[in-house]
């Protein structure tokens, strides 16, 4: 007997089930199809402006910084200003995301912009979020050539661009969008929820910012 049959057989013996009961099968299919939402915290409800305000408060509590921009035209100057404020070289890495590609980088003559995933040599990178969740101040990023996952973890400083219109109240609203885009039961290879720069409290329960992932996280919210 295969290990699979042994484990499933043992589970069924314990449950007193055969695995072929129509009722049980229907219950499972029904839950997967309906994916009921459960309890959703009220705090995420509210207007677009309230969601933005809550998102900002929550992610700042986790040591991220936030700038609000009027248009994506302001991205290059905001990036340059951020790098300068951290005394970093004027270099940034990005993926192929069109919303980033179309920003007027030529306005920042001293800023060198390269494209592609990170191999660990970049100090700073920029990604575009798929959306965000106000409830806990959480950015949602999806993998792909547009925003390679390595950009979120290898560089020391991470900048994330977020469209204010894509800040949802709760996680469930993001899942609805993902289902709509990718199809039922299908996920992008990686979905990253990011709620601040990396941290640890392993040594003497002292909270330290900047563990293995980025030491700083800066969010540029485009609020038109």
């Amino acid at each position, binding site marked *: 007997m295969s290990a699979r049959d042994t484990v*499933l057989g043992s589970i069924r013996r314990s449950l007193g089930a055969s695995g072929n009961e129509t009722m049980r099968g229907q219950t499972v299919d029904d839950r997967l199809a309906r994916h009921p939402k459960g309890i959703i915290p009220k705090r995420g409800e509210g207007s677009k402006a309230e969601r933005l305000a809550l998102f900002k408060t929550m992610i700042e509590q986790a040591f991220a910084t936030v700038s609000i921009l009027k248009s994506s035209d302001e991205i290059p100057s905001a990036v340059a200003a951020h790098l300068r404020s951290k005394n970093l070289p004027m270099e940034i890495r990005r993926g192929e995301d069109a919303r980033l590609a179309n920003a007027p980088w030529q306005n920042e003559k001293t800023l060198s912009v390269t494209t592609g995933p990170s191999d660990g040599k970049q100090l700073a990178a920029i990604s575009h979020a798929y959306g965000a969740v106000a409830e806990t101040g959480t950015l949602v990023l999806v993998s792909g050539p547009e925003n390679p996952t390595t950009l979120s973890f290898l560089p020391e400083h991470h900048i994330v661009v977020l469209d204010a219109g894509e800040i949802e109240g709760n996680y469930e609203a993001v899942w609805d969008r993902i289902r709509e885009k990718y199809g039922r039961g299908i*996920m992008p290879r*990686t979905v*990253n929820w990011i709620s601040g720069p990396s941290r640890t409290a*392993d040594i*003497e329960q002292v909270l330290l910012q900047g563990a293995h992932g980025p030491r700083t996280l800066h969010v540029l919210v485009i609020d038109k």
Partner: protein
Amino acid sequence: MSHPIKSPQFKENAHEALQDAQLQKALGKIETGAVARRRSAAEHLPEFERLRDSARDIKNHTLAHLDLYLEQYEKRVNEQGGHVHWAVTAEDMRQIVLDICKKANARIVTKGKSMIGEEVALNDFLEKNNIVPVETDLGEYIIQIRNEAPSHIIFPVLHLNKEEIEEDFRRVHTNLPVGRNIKEPAELLAEARTVLREKFLAADVGITGANFLVAETGTSLIVTNEGNGDLTQTLPKVHIVLASIEKVVPTLEDVSQMLRVLARSATGQEISIYTTFSTGPRRKEDVDGPGEYHVILLDNGRSAMLAGQFRDMLRCIRCGACMNHCPVYGAVGGHAYGWVYPGPMGAVLTPSLIGVDKAGHLPNASTFCGRCEEVCPVRIPLPKMMRHWREREFERHLSPATVRSGLKVWSFFALRPTLYGFFAGLGMNLLASLGRTKGRFRWLPLAGGWTRYRDFPVPQGETFQSRWKNRQRAEKKP
């Protein structure tokens, strides 16, 4: 690492722990740290208690249909080009990992934090087979270079201070300048970051655990604060996920309910910094990510637990709240429990996994104060289950006869809390009035075993239960 099981020597371990001043200092910080933070996080979310009910119900529903959800999960992983392997025992899991590593010609393997990895003692096995496993979670890394077991499931090096860690780093990182300054936690972290960065980039295989598996989409997910899990699973060409069968939940909505209680219960954060959902290997258009994705599902006694009194334990999401709130854990720490899972959850789980003969007495390490059940995000009736174990141990005649007869009386009362409180209170008052003059007894009826060697302190007029109640009442007042 494989560590000899020291659970049978709980008493000796506990005795040692009580003498350990450094450990006592570290344990003392839990109450103002994790405990206070959890309380504040819970208070900040009005829906928290209802979310706990929801989390419990989701787990119960899933466990009742576990076979079907696992089949659905496996189907989705396959559709996305991933592989699911089934492991009946710890040995099976180790062998499957080794086979995958060998096929990938792996020499260095990075590891994210995985309690399953500890449970099956993977590192030791890989080392014996000439593969170098590198723990990348800061706490787990320190544990690994010390060749110890974690003393807490969330804070593995809770028992250590920075001086001890400095000593370890100096001993192991011999290629770094001797005169360097690594006294402070921040400096120790910076050094670990540099050392481990090289390993991340050099690793051939990355192994992570899984906090949950999602049947709807064939997704595994990890929750971390350091970002080490993400580097572990994104950079090497092969990603292996170590999971146990009870980690599965039906849908993305269900896992979102679970996540709302996990971080708040574990560290008191609103949400952990990184929650990462992984589905299959890199897609053809991707420019990074692992080329292979394997999930190994471990049973190791869990399917049998589904049948009996311990099914509820399979709801556990490993948040650590029960140990943070446990007066016994708070007194003796995690190593006293002698295996990988400490505290109340360990006292219930360990006998199921390694046998009642080795760990059946762990459930005695409890004051039955009920604090663990009060905070458990999935409402596991931990005290009741510890009682089940005590009864089983009793039935199996593993306890000496005197303990047995005493226990019978005790369990009669323990099953009837009001009576227990009443009689315990009565006993206390009686003793208190008898010993009032001296403050100590040198002899008591039926307690010769105790008073032969030491004086029995006169009770201070209150039982633990009534004191606890008062204290909690006081805590609840603003």
